[in-house]
């Protein structure tokens, strides 16, 4: 009782081969699309490399690139198989390869599913990585004279301007670090000395933010300094002022951006999975139909195509039996050397029995 049997006349077989050839070239394009998607995502992640502490999230674009390339190769092989399928002399050489091809195709589909799942699952790790990276960026903002960190200021400024965000969680993160380098502080001034002595670590802390936090949509020119002091500026109320600076934190902004990117690729990846599965199923039908036709006396006649020769339970039992036989053969072999050739003959019989079921796949 074969699984999902269908009858195929010669004409239907030809149609199936042609349709599958087109479908496999479509799948090649989809593979190229997945590869390009992976490259794009990787480039976007690399651009903001400086504010990310680890590269765990890179597994998503890496997987996409690998799967894209493998998919291009596998579907190109499928198109070659289609081209040769209707020629009885050229088809047999592909038969051996096909079992491996099915395994590869199933693996690719599973990997693509894993990518979709990972892109949601790794959100927490991405946030953690951004939290640490941004914290370091803000801490080293002033170190424009330290080799290796001299571009932190420019990176953070450009990041805040481009993503319209300020600080890690919000703008108050800037109040907790010294972001003005000591080179630009006049240590003879009383005000500077007071501020430095006012905290344990001897840092020059302000309730001010860098210019890159300023929101251009504010109706008033940007207020950067003495933000918590409502009397320092005319007509300014610290608690109710909303438009002066960006209210969003950069961690939130970057996470939203990357999650948006990965979510928008979700539907594309899912449709590629569907296309790959349909190539897989059609290939199976084509293979069984063509093999059935080759076994007939008149190759132009009708043959049957199916997914599995027996139904699911019987196939599973078969596969289990084969696997156990292989295991037993491996176990018996060292024992038979000690026991003698008699048991070796019995083992040979067992392997012959295991080999006799017709090669259904």
């Amino acid at each position, binding site marked *: 009782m074969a699984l999902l049997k269908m009858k195929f006349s010669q004409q239907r077989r030809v149609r199936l081969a042609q349709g599958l050839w087109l479908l496999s070239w479509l799948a090649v394009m989809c593979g190229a699309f997945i590869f390009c998607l992976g490259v794009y995502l990787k480039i976007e992640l690399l651009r903001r490399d400086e504010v990310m502490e680890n590269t765990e999230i890179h597994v998503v674009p890496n997987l996409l690139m690998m799967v894209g390339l493998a998919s291009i190769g596998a579907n190109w092989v499928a198109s070659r198989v289609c081209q040769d399928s209707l020629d009885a002399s050229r088809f047999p050489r592909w038969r051996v390869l096909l079992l491996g091809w099915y395994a590869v195709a199933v693996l690719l589909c599973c990997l693509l599913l894993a990518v979709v799942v990972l892109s949601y699952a790794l959100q927490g790790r991405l946030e953690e990585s951004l939290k640490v990276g941004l914290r370091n960026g803000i801490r080293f903002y002033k170190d424009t004279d330290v080799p290796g960190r001299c571009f932190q200021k420019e990176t953070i400024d450009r990041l805040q301007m481009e993503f319209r965000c300020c600080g890690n969680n919000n703008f108050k993160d800037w109040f907790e670090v010294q972001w003005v380098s000591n080179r630009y502080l006049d240590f003879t001034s009383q005000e500077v000395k007071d501020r430095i002595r006012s905290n344990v670590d001897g840092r020059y802390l302000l309730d001010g933010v860098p210019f890159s936090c300023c929101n251009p949509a504010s109706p008033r*020119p940007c207020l950067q300094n003495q933000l918590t002091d409502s009397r320092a500026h005319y007509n300014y109320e610290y608690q109710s002022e909303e438009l002066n600076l960006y209210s969003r934190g950069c961690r939130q902004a970057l996470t939203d951006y990357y999650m948006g990117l990965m979510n928008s690729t979700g539907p594309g990846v899912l449709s590629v999975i569907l296309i790959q599965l349909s190539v897989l199923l059609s290939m199976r039908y084509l293979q069984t139909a063509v093999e059935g036709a080759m076994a007939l006396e008149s190759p132009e006649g009708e043959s049957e195509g199916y997914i599995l020769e027996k139904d699911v339970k019987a196939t599973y039992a078969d596969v289990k039996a084969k696997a156990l036989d292989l295991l037993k053969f491996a176990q018996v072999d060292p024992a038979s050397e000690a026991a003698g050739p008699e048991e070796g003959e019995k083992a040979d019989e067992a392997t012959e029995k295991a080999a006799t079921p017709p090669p259904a796949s």
Partner: protein
Amino acid sequence: MPFLSLKFNLQKRVKLAQGLWMLYWLAVIVGIILFSLGIFFKIELRKRSEIMDNNESHLVPNLLILVGMLSCGLNAFGGKLCHDSLDPQKFSKMKPMLRPYMLLCCGFNALLLLLVLLCFLMQFAVYLTLAEGLKNAIRFYKDTDTPGRCFMKRTLDMTQIEFRCCGNNNFRDWFEVQWISNRYLDMSNDVVKDRVLSNVEGKYLMDSVPFSCCNPGSPRPCIQHHLTNNSAHYDYDHRTEELNIWNRGCRQAVFSYYSGIMNSIGALLIFTMVLEAGDVAGLKYLSTALETMADPENPECESEGWLLEKGFKETLADLLSKVKTFGRANQVEEGRASPDVAAT
């Protein structure tokens, strides 16, 4: 003596038709590119129309869109002509359309030439519009409560950030206007009152610039206020300070952006002109080669193709005499008509 004549056998005619078909489809693709460039340029002009006083001329992008569409249509038709030319039946049906089509293509080439000239000349107009527009934008920067101008501040800030520029010619343009609205000035404060009284028009002028002039690449946090006062900041000399704010003026920055776009469009148009000329020449060769076949029933026969039936000077002389006789024919008829009228 035909001008630039060539001999064609069947194989050469077929090759010419095929090559010409591909050239025509290349010209269709170039037409699509021109169309999209026109739309892109139009969108770019619209995006920044606020700093150009909404006064900018959309002549070049509109013409470019028109030229793109015309090019697609004309060249697709030309491709179809080539495709049908080797079939004698279809060719004889299309023969009457060839001459007007080639004249149309020559007219289209003239339009392309005009557009190339416009591309290079309109850059002056863009420059002047930008100068005027930016001057007004800086003046109206503070008017965030005036309807119609409330987004000027945001537009100008975003422009200065995006193009990495400050002011019209340079940052000193900000010293000459009041860019802080009166709503945020404490008029009871003595400092404010002094500043307002210190100039004739009663404007609150400062030697400061908005935050969007700041250069993120500066090693020190941005100095926006008291720019010309060295003692206001520690370790600061306004004459030698280069990285603090952007040095370039926005007029220069935005103009070089638009100038780049217009120059590349001009270069593409010149390429299109050459392509079109090649197409017309090829079509002329093909049509004359097919027309001068000695034996129309035998496709294998040899024929001759040329660009002009007589030599270049003779064709010119012919054309001139035709124009003259066209004018004279009217005059002679009038003269003859009057004796008849007088006789009857």
